[in-house]
């Protein structure tokens, strides 16, 4: 399914500072308000609700009014995470007459309430909900992105991509778009994005990576691109790099990334 905004669908936000988290969350909330959706956010136990009210304000709505009309709901993790609870929240939003619903939570709070397996199951269920186009979910993780296998698997359930400062991925019309710059600071985000991207296609299929908005990638970034897709390619999956910018195409040719098994470069700039 094609998404029209960076903030729609099932996406991961990788953040380093509270400020970074709040700035992104405000943008994500604004998108929901613009679409007339219900916005459900979680807060940490003991965290004042004032922060959410401030974010509402930043997102362009009157916080008091939004609370009264039930367009914004601010829940504690214990109210958000029991199994089935998210499905109830989604169903209720439609009963209340909203055109859609979006939910946001911190991975760290989820893991304090659910087992890793339980959390993976919850994220897989959420990814299914998000495919109908009127449900969106933003799952916030602190950076660096977890490399621990079960968590990495969970991160990969976010089929609409990964957002972080400097780099993001999202599902576009012609494949998975990689946007921004990849360097030693954002290379973990690329790894998370590729895990998620591989999850959008089946085994032995073609994963199209649209590089038209990838402005910079360093040598370590290309090494990660090959490593993160190695299992997929070893299982007869093919990675197609398309609409590559000229300087990025030059780098990948010099590094012979286009000659790696299972990698193909198409309509890259000459």
């Amino acid at each position, binding site marked *: 399914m094609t998404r029209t905004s960076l903030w729609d669908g099932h996406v991961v936000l990788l953040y380093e500072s509270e400020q970074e988290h709040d700035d992104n969350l405000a943008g994500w909330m604004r998108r929901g308000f613009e679409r007339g959706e219900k916005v459900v956010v979680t807060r940490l136990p003991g965290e004042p609700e004032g922060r959410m009210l401030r974010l509402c304000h930043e997102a362009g709505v009157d916080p008091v009014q939004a609370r009264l009309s039930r367009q914004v709901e601010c829940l504690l993790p214990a109210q958000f995470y029991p199994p089935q609870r998210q499905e109830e929240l989604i169903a209720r939003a439609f009963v209340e007459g909203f055109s859609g619903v979006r939910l946001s939570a911190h991975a760290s709070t989820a893991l304090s309430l659910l087992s890793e397996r339980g959390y993976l199951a919850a994220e897989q269920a959420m990814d299914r909900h998000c495919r109908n186009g009127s449900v969106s979910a933003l799952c916030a993780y602190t950076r660096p992105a977890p490399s621990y296998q079960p968590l990495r698997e969970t991160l990969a359930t976010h089929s609409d991509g990964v957002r972080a400062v400097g780099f993001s991925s999202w599902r576009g019309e012609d494949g998975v778009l990689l946007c921004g710059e990849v360097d030693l*600071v954002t290379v973990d985000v690329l790894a998370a994005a590729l895990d998620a991207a591989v999850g959008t296609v089946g085994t032995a299929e073609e994963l199209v990576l649209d590089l038209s908005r990838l402005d*910079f990638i360093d040598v*370590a970034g290309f090494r990660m691109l090959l490593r993160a897709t190695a299992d997929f390619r070893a299982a007869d999956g093919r990675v197609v790099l398309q609409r590559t910018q000229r300087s990025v195409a030059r780098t990948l040719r*010099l590094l012979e990334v286009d000659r790696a098994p299972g990698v193909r470069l198409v309509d890259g700039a000459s």
Partner: protein
Amino acid sequence: MSHIHQLLLAGSDEDVVASVVPFVLEGRSAGEPTLLSLPSPTAVAVRELVGTYAGLTVLATELTGRRPGTDLARFQALVQESMAAGTRVRVVNQIPPTLYRDWYQWRRYEAAVNVVHAHLNAWGLCVYDARRLSPGMVEDLQATHPFTGRGIDRRTNPQYQEPRAFCDAHFDAPPDPVEQTQPAVELLDPSPAAARAAVRDLAGHRAGLTDDNVEALVLAAHEALANAWIHGRPPVVVRAWAPPGRVLVTVTDTGRGPQDSFLGLLHSPDHQGMWISHQLVDVAHCRHAGGYTTRLTAPASQSLP
């Protein structure tokens, strides 16, 4: 099957022609493909005397962006292509004297050829115009070529030095005079993104380099900074200058610098960043009392091949 790396010191253009013609003709009768990379008047004279035949390839010499890294990769690819026939390949190469300006790079190149091209079944004849060489340059050439002699007349060179030892002793480049002047950019411990933005701004907006050269310099500066972060010691300082005709970036850390004096010339999976920088821009290394500096230079006008 072996690699022969031979120095031909010529006293004149006629001298070059007189030595190269028998070398090419011998190759022709032995059925060995020959690659000729000589300045055009000499190349034309040689071709008139040897004739045109299928095994002879005349290469352009005045390529833009020609530097040790690109030459090593280019000749390796060309020789491997010609070797496909299963015979030895002959190469005659005269580096254009205009490139002698960066002699510190080319003497490392000549030493590295002995290692990088060791697996090639090739007889390479490196032609130098003795009139354009200082005694020190002649010494460097004697130290880096295992063979000398006028073409087919080939002798083992007693002055030849083990290439890694030569590169160790000649790793450090002299500073560029512009480094003594006030830099246009000076950043202390910058993030890679901040360093890239500063280089892009100076090279692209202020100095007006071509987009290709801007991005080449940005990548090379970024890789040097990444190396400084990973292998070097903080603080790391990035400086940049934009004198007429070129843009220079230096990345300095307080560590001891790389231990591998072939760094960037040998294609190794562990040092791809430095290798790719050598393909894209001029790279100079300098270990000094304050630490280690990598200097990257991109020209203002030329575009990359």
